């Protein structure tokens, strides 16, 4: 199966993080290619980073202010951005999703989830990391989409155990159904708040894949 090689640009101001991410991508099978990296988003706007299919960026680039504006410009250009940050607070996470980030990973869960999230981003398929699922599971913000109790259960169990097999065992579902639940929740979030082309692409792809029906939105 000759899947196309996924190209990534990594924006982070810590060289050790850059090196670690490169190592994870190199060890992935098939490997993910880091075509450019740098301490600020300039790397994503200039070649070769400009044509990379996925952007992985830290939210705290040098300053104390989260780089929401950079994220917004990238999302408005239809770039698939994975935010990879130290911050875990609900406000930051939900703001990034609302702006149009593809996914949000905390630094603690990079090794296990960054490669999977990157592949999903390259294919424009939803991906919810456990930390993001935890945040959505307790989300009480007024903009949140309506979730069924079962959907919330799946979110929180995924957050707790980081294993879809365990969630499936615990809730008496199949692992595939657990994935479907998570994907559908991600699509529901993509369909709320600020309109962004990245969100629209995610929803369109989900409808095309039969993950969710138009009248469900």
């Amino acid at each position, binding site marked *: 199966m000759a899947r196309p090689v996924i190209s990534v640009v990594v924006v982070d101001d810590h060289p050790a993080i850059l090196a670690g991410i490169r190592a994870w991508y190199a060890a992935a099978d098939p490997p993910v290619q880091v075509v450019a990296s740098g301490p600020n988003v300039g790397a994503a706007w200039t070649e070769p980073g400009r044509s990379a299919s996925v952007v992985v960026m830290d939210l705290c680039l040098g300053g104390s202010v989260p780089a929401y504006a950079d994220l917004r410009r990238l999302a408005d250009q239809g770039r698939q951005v994975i935010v990879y940050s130290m911050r875990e607070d609900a406000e930051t996470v939900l703001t990034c999703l609302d702006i149009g980030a593809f996914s949000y990973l905390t630094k603690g869960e990079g090794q296990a989830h960054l490669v999977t999230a990157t592949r999903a981003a390259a294919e424009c398929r939803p991906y919810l990391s456990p930390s993001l699922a935890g945040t959505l599971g307790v989300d009480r913000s007024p903009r949140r989409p309506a979730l069924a109790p079962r959907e919330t259960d799946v979110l929180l169990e995924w957050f*707790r155990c980081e294993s879809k097999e365990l969630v499936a065992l615990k809730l008496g579902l199949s692992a595939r159904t657990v994935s479907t639940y998570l994907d559908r929740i991600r699509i529901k979030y993509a369909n709320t708040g600020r309109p962004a082309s990245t969100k629209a692409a995610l929803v369109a792809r989900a409808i095309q894949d039969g993950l969710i029906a138009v009248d469900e939105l």
Partner: protein
Amino acid sequence: MNARSSSSPVAGRFLRSLRAAVLLVTSVLLLFWQLPTVVALAAVYRPLWVEAGALGVLALVAVVAAPVVLRDRPWGPARWPLLVAAQLAVLAATAAVPASALIGPPHWAWEVYGWYALVLAMDRPGLWAGCVAVHLLLTVAQVAGAGRGQPRTLVGMAVVALVVGSWQLSILLTARALEWVAACADRRAEQEAALRTAESVAEQLHRDRTERYAALADSTLPLLAGLATRRISPDDPQVQLACRIEASRLRRLFAENDDVAHPLEHELRACIDVAERRGVAVDLAVRGRQPDLPRSVRRALADRAIAALATAEVSARVTVVCRDDSVVLSVIVPGPEGAGEGSAPPPPGTTDPEEPLDVSWFDTAGGTWLEAAWHGR
């Protein structure tokens, strides 16, 4: 009444009563001495209407003063027109008394002004003294002007003024003394309250310590005694496990009294620190707004986490999910330790007989999954 009394509740109450009493004295004098005198000696006054008018003005001053005094409001600039009105009324009343009757029964007016000044200026002794002095000078001038300035009359006036003035002065001094005593009482009450607070804090601390000591006496002390007497051996894996648990519980107890925003998270971190010192990589994630949990619930949750973490050798994941009505702690320990083959291991580490949590163990081939849930009432 004034800024001083309002700063002291005790003084405020005393002075309010004293003000009311002075107003009462003034009104009684007006109704039962001045009014009957004017009625009985109506023929003496020249003319009568001036005397009656002066009496009316004084009555009006008392009526206007009454609500302010009874509601214990401060006077402010409102006292000036009243002081002047009372003074003018008294001058007019004296002027209406014929020279022959001055400093006699019909001449009541000059003796009462001090009371009005006291009603209107009890909070300012200097003002009261000034008003009374001006009043006496004017009266002496009136009396002398009417040709009654003989030493005998003036000495009689001085004696009356001294008697009435001392009486009024004693009330002023009483007000001052009350203020001072009340301030002392307030200070003492504050000190006593502070002392009581300190005592109850100390008592609470002592109770907490005793309680913590009791919590340790059941488990930590026997373990230490066993190690000291070599009854148990540190080589025994069971003893090592018990040591891990007790070390974590000690850390949790130390963390319990810290003043932090999220006590549960703080206490869990203390327990996790013990595991991390052994080289176990523990991942803690908390979601949702943490409610104010009772200490017993925090202890029960932390005890569950301690028991689960003690079995971890390589890594563990601890999560806390706080929702509106529940807090769920979950600890996942990968590895073969939890190979209970379907049967849930007995939940170790509980010391609280009134278990406030719903606890479930979930064993898989990959490890153990503990979940402890607290549901708010």
